[in-house]
């Protein structure tokens, strides 16, 4: 996984709440057996609509998504994270994320930055007033910022310490755990004998 320290990019305002993972990528697009190529399915139901935010030229190169509350609720499909990444997004900002989505983002290297609802509103207003404006997410200082002078929006975002550390270091989770293999072996040795086995 690549290290993530800070990112600056064009931010697209997605003024919707409760964007569940079926919206991010419908089930019919989940049939690939690779980790790439899911950008086609991203927000599939809305992409034909010329008014949809990602179809507007100003947001063509967007790498930051600013979404309403409860983004990524619903299914466990990590394809939702891959679809966002395959499309080019590096970070999503929302005031509340679905639990599994947030977990998946951390594992796959997409920054899910949780901010106060007021900050989402301020960022929406800012990028809509200045289409194509860039937003910066600094993982080291956990801050999100955009604009200059009186227009400046700056605030902190929340991300748990462990995920932040892993993203900053670009660490592979499995390798971290396997470095504690002795603990796993010790646990296995004392497991209750009546637990079921499939083989």
């Amino acid at each position, binding site marked *: 996984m690549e290290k993530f320290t800070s990112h600056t990019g064009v931010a697209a305002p997605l003024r919707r709440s409760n964007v569940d993972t079926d919206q991010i990528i419908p089930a019919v697009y989940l049939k690939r057996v690779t980790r790439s190529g899911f950008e086609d399915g991203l927000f599939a139901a809305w992409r034909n609509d010329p008014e949809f935010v990602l179809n507007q030229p100003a947001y063509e190169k967007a790498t930051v998504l600013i979404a309403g509350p409860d983004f990524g609720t619903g299914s466990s499909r990590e394809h939702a994270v891959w679809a966002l990444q395959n499309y080019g997004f590096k970070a999503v900002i929302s005031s509340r994320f679905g639990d599994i989505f947030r977990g998946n983002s951390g594992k796959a290297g997409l920054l899910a930055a949780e901010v106060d609802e007021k900050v989402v509103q301020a960022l929406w207003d800012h990028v809509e007033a200045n289409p194509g404006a860039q937003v910066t997410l600094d993982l080291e200082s956990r801050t999100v910022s955009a604009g200059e002078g009186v227009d400046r929006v700056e605030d902190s975002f929340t991300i748990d310490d*462990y995920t932040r550390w892993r993203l900053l270091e670009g660490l592979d989770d499995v390798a971290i755990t396997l470095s504690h293999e002795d603990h796993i072996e010790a646990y296995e040795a004392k497991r209750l004998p009546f637990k079921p*086995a*499939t083989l």
Partner: protein
Amino acid sequence: MGRTLAEKIWDDHVVRSHAGEPDLLFIDLHLIHEVTSPQAFDGLRLSGRTVRRPDLTLATEDHNIPTTDLDKPIADLVSRTQVETLRRNAEEFGVRLHPMGDIDQGIVHVVGPQLGLTQPGMTIVCGDSHTSTHGAFGSIAFGIGTSEVEHVLATQSLSQAKPKMMAVDVVGELPPGSTAKDLILALITQETTGGGQGYIVEYRGEAIRKLSMEARMTICNMSIEWGAKAGLIAPDQTTYEYLKDRVHAPQGEQWDEAVAYWDSLVTDDDAHFDKIITIDASTVTPFVTWGTNPGQGVPLSANVPIPDEFEDANEKVAAERALEYMGLTAGTPMREIDIDTVFIGSCTNGRMEDLRVVADIIKGRTVADNTRVLVVPGSVRVRLQAEEEGLDLVFKEAGAEWRGAGCSMCLGMNPDTLTPGERSASTSNRNFEGRQGKGGRTHLVSPEVAAATAVLGHLAAPSDLPALTTTGA
């Protein structure tokens, strides 16, 4: 201080705990299906790793597979590739697989309990959010993403920050005609889709104790629909009776040992919950959704809500959008909504009890004109059992379609989908936009409501059905 049921199970599975890091938990059972596993197996291959505990892993095919023409190869090539990929991976890594055509094939959350692999006090994960179903046995069970699937395959463990603890006290008793599905739909509407976020939820109270195992599974299944990490119910005699003598249940002396341990799996009187909420079961009536998330529901006797009456601005906008998508007019009585397709199945309501209830209601009646009714059993064993009881004949005589086992129209990955604008009453768990097919409109209902709706062609409860006239001498 005492501990909650979930805390006891959690503590019993900690492999490693270190300040500032999430706990590393041992995983007792890892369930796998074709959609969320290919990239995980690929990851193993790329890094030269193996499956650490194939003996704690079980795979089945469910999301993609057709429910008709079961003897033919899967027509959709991309689906077929995904299923074949699972078969190759299972073979290469030595994982037990129940493929199409196998007697133990079915929806992963129906198969686990049916085999007796789901037991109290376990940690169970699967790359599927409705893994919460298994919490009905008093386990910590939750859905994971594909990176985590790879992690569990490689290490049989998962690092997890400990969620907060919530108790849902269900007071009172469910009135006759109201079901577990109505209760959970009402609860989700009360708490909204984000209300359980960050919590493991324990469902408690007399009404819960009285529920059968299958009804408890319906409740826990939908925990994720109000955002909870997991939902669970303390094991009791009902749990043990369900489990006893199942293929993978402990046998002989081990059974007694297991029961002694399971008996300890209760929340202590002085345990601390971060939040306790209450719902009065006695006020629950048949409940249905009108919108595009499971928290947008009303009693069947109510009307489609008026967006302006929502206080919260976000909810108001969401309601307007939902009504537009659903093609509904505010103020319309729910009972006047005509239904094109009734779907009976899924890991929420695709088990024996559900099919029996539907058959009871439909028997001797016919499906309404212009209404298509799909009955899709949750597993092959459910299908065979239903056929042994003659339920398939009841469905077919009434004009419903009797299908093979799988997820089917719950998520429309196979050919069973709604067409744009088509409206369903569905016993599944998600009414998201496009969930059952692009442009499809879903109303979540109980099996009872689904059956009555099938007969009348509009949303209805069994009490709306005219009495059957008994014929004969």
